[in-house]
């Protein structure tokens, strides 16, 4: 079906932000506050983006609970948690700027839980040496998105709700200067012209069967950037959160916050053992408790006791749970037990974890103040993503910026809990500045190639003109099955090759789907237009996983079970080169000596000196 320009309406802005979660809104606020015409595109309604589901908190070395905390400790925790694969400059900026960004949210109206002296309370989380997560019970993401939403409204940002972007448009010189999408209520196409574009589209979880992600997380930004020619890094590094719900089946994968363990919950197997004591890796042995007594004492006293192994970084805990279940020591529905009922009072649990309490009570009929939860790993977060310049969030495509989950590098091979919310506001702001600077520096008019837009629109409409093809729901289900079984927590070469073969068949099937009905709010058509993103991202994950012949962070290879020091020095970069999809190792940016020094004196419990 051919589409001509008459069928496409046009909107023009200085800065276009694709994605209305934490990073997108923060970028838009920054750009708009500089006086630039700024639009935000939401895939859903305004304020429903996936940020809303973040539970535990936002990590920032405010030092309100432990005054020993500072950005260097946070930086070191982040890079060790990321198994040294992080972009050092991003990790540094993140640790340095997160406190200011959190305080800024407070000045914009956010109400974080308080310490006794009226400052922002901080909670313990996996991999963070000190209690560091500013939080609001277990609904921190909601507080954050509503605060940013109100701020964005007050500075006058144009919001396009329920729009799906199909393609980033470039001008004749290859500079990004527009985007083509459609609005879901009417199905009409819209061409957005902009001097600069910020991608803030979030994650990719919907390609897996069991995921904590909502329907929006189809990796649109990853796919858009890749097809626009941007470099992608470390796409094999996918985080499986150790604690998702496992029962009932219909809610399998739904997130159970790490805050349960941060606030005293312990993991148990079917033999009632705290099995995490058997899975302490060498890298973290010096700073992890050896006995249950020490682990329990640590909650109140970080000075004389070391942290509980229940709060090891997420990759370690997810692998441990996976191993326990495989060894036959799992819970009845194929997870393990997470017990806070026998360890904290009902009043404490309801005050600290109100949404966990109601989530389990209402969806599983489990009262978490009286009985343990059943939990297991769930696909949660994409560490890999678009390669960006740390300071400006610029991608390798001129005019295109990226922030938040869609950007790679910040979290290395494994993200620490709480570091994503801080990532959003630190790099959201930087992307806003980067895009605004770029837009202000441009002269002349912005002219995206119209043929790209009409081509993308025609392609999107093609499922309507085909008869007798498969349903997009069927292909989506098969893709989820494929990624869950073949590109899950533990990977092997044979399975990854099989996965790539299946993805290629699924791509072929997806190119022949049929959709009935009209364009107005048609979920089958919407899914059909999401499939290309999911398939592109799935392929990138599998190809990266095949080439990274080692185990590191979220990427675990059964056939290469150890980390390989050679792979520690490289990002796996994927890009389209002359129409060909390539994967190649490229050296990580070299960390300066003064930061390297932070990793040399590994004395557990001792903070690097603050001299900044």
């Amino acid at each position, binding site marked *: 079906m051919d589409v001509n320009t008459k069928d496409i309406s046009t*909107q023009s802005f200085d800065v276009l932000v694709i994605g209305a979660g934490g990073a997108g809104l923060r970028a838009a606020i920054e750009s*708009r*506050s500089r006086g630039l015409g700024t639009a935000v595109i939401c895939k*859903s*309604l*305004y304020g*429903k983006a*996936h940020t*809303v*589901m973040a539970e535990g908190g936002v990590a920032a070395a405010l030092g309100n609970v432990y005054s020993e905390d500072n950005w260097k400790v946070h930086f070191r925790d982040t890079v060790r948690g990321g198994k040294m694969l992080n972009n050092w400059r991003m990790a540094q900026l993140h640790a340095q700027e997160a406190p200011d960004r959190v*305080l800024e949210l*407070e*000045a914009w*109206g956010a*109400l974080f*839980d*308080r310490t006794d*002296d*009226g*400052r922002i309370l901080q909670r313990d989380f996996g991999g963070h040496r000190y209690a560091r997560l500013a939080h*609001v*019970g277990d*609904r921190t993401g*909601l507080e954050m998105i*509503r605060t940013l939403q*109100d*701020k964005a*409204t*007050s*500075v*006058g940002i*144009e*919001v*396009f*709700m329920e729009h799906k972007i199909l393609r980033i448009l470039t001008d004749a010189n290859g500079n990004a200067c527009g985007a083509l999408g459609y609005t879901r*209520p009417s199905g009409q196409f819209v061409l957005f012209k902009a001097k600069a574009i910020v991608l803030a589209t979030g994650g990719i979880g919907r390609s897996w069967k069991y995921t904590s992600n*909502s*329907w929006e997380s189809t990796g649109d930004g990853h796919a858009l950037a890749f097809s626009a020619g941007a470099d992608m890094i470390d796409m094999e590094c996918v985080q499986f959160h150790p604690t998702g719900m496992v029962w*009932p*089946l*219909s*809610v399998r994968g*739904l997130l159970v916050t790490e805050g349960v363990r941060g606030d005293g919950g312990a993991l148990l197997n079917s033999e009632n053992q705290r099995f995490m004591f058997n899975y302490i890796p060498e890298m973290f042995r010096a700073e992890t408790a050896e006995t249950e007594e020490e682990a329990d004492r640590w909650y109140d006293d970080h000075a004389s006791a070391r942290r509980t192994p229940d709060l090891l970084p997420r990759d370690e805990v997810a692998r441990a749970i996976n191993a326990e279940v495989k060894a036959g020591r799992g819970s009845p529905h194929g997870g393990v037990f997470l017990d806070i009922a026998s360890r904290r009072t009902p009043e404490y649990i309801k005050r600290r974890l109100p*949404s966990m309490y109601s*989530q389990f009570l209402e*969806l*599983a009929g489990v009262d978490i103040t009286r009985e343990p939860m059943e939990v297991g790993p769930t696909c949660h977060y994409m560490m890999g993503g678009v390669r960006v310049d740390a300071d400006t969030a610029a991608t390798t495509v001129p005019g295109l910026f990226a922030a938040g989950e869609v950007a790679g590098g910040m979290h290395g091979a494994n993200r620490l809990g709480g570091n994503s919310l801080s990532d959003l506001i630190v790099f959201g702001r930087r992307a806003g500045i980067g895009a605004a600077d770029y837009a202000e520096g441009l002269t002349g008019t912005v002219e995206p190639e119209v043929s790209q837009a009409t081509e993308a629109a025609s392609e999107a409409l093609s499922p309507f003109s085909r008869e007798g093809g498969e*349903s*997009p*729901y*069927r292909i989506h*289900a098969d893709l989820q099955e494929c990624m869950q079984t073949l590109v899950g927590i533990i990977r092997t070469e044979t399975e990854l090759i099989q996965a790539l073969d299946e993805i290629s068949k699924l791509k072929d099937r997806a190119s022949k789907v049929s*959709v*009935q*009905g*009209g364009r*107005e*709010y*048609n*979920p089958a058509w919407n899914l059909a237009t999401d499939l290309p993103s999911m398939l592109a991202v799935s392929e990138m994950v599998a190809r990266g996983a095949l080439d990274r012949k080692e185990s590191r962070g979220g990427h675990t290879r059964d056939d290469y079970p150890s980390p390989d020091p050679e792979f520690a020095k490289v990002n796996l970069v994927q890009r389209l080169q002359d129409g060909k999809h390539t994967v190649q190792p490229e050296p990580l940016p070299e960390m300066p000596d003064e930061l390297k020094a932070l990793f040399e004196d590994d004395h557990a419990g001792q903070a690097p000196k603050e001299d900044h």
Partner: protein
Amino acid sequence: MTEVTMNIWRGDSSGGSFYEYKLERVEGEVVLDVVHRIQATLAPDLACRWNCKAGKCGSCSAEIDGKPSLMCMTRMDTLPNDKITITPMKTFPIIRDLVTDVSFNYVMARQIPPFTPGDPEPDGTYRMQQIDIDRAQEFHKCIECFLCQDVCHVIRDHEVNKLYYAGPRFFVKLASLDMHPLDTVDRRELIRQHLGLGFCNITKCCTEVCPEHIKITDNAIIPLKERVVDSSYDPIAWLGRKIRRKVKYTVEQAYALAPAQVAPTALDRVSATAIDDEGKS
């Protein structure tokens, strides 16, 4: 294995009717799961909104057997009948099937002068005691599912009132701003004259449907009514304000302090203008 019949309203702004879908029951499912199974098998183009499927985003609002509810938090085994009826929210215009146009709410959000804090402590940060923010934190739990707006008879049964009435969601918002320890704006005249707090006759329907269990009527609306009435009609309170040291910003000052005027988007420009004009007349 037992069967269930889902009786779902389908159509668009020009009209519609009920369609029946028969499916097997699956243990532990919520209504949204069944709607998804209908989409995957029987009616691929059945339109509904959803996002988180965990009661955290407030997207999948609908009326289940007549009761405004979140589809993702309504377990099938809590519904007694073998035939379950789902209709879209009645208060808002239909887009398609179970999807309604809720832009009224986003327009209303723009009428509220933004949070405007006072000066911070000398170190540049703020201090607040937990006990002073407990109530406002209750209001911040709102997930904007708009079920309270849907059930409120002031706008559910009287379309014209949408021009003069913010609705329970925004009374909760206004109460949260009013009770925020750092905020400095006095919005009481705006609430009384333009946002229609007086229309609410505290039937508590909003409280009953709130999936976050916010005590909308008792904790937000009634205290807000008391403060608004005090400010307008109580001579002693009026005198007290005159001699009180700390002066709050007026609504106009708050708008001026915001980095930019609250501006409607392309989506709601037309209706926003209508509300502005009517509200002032």
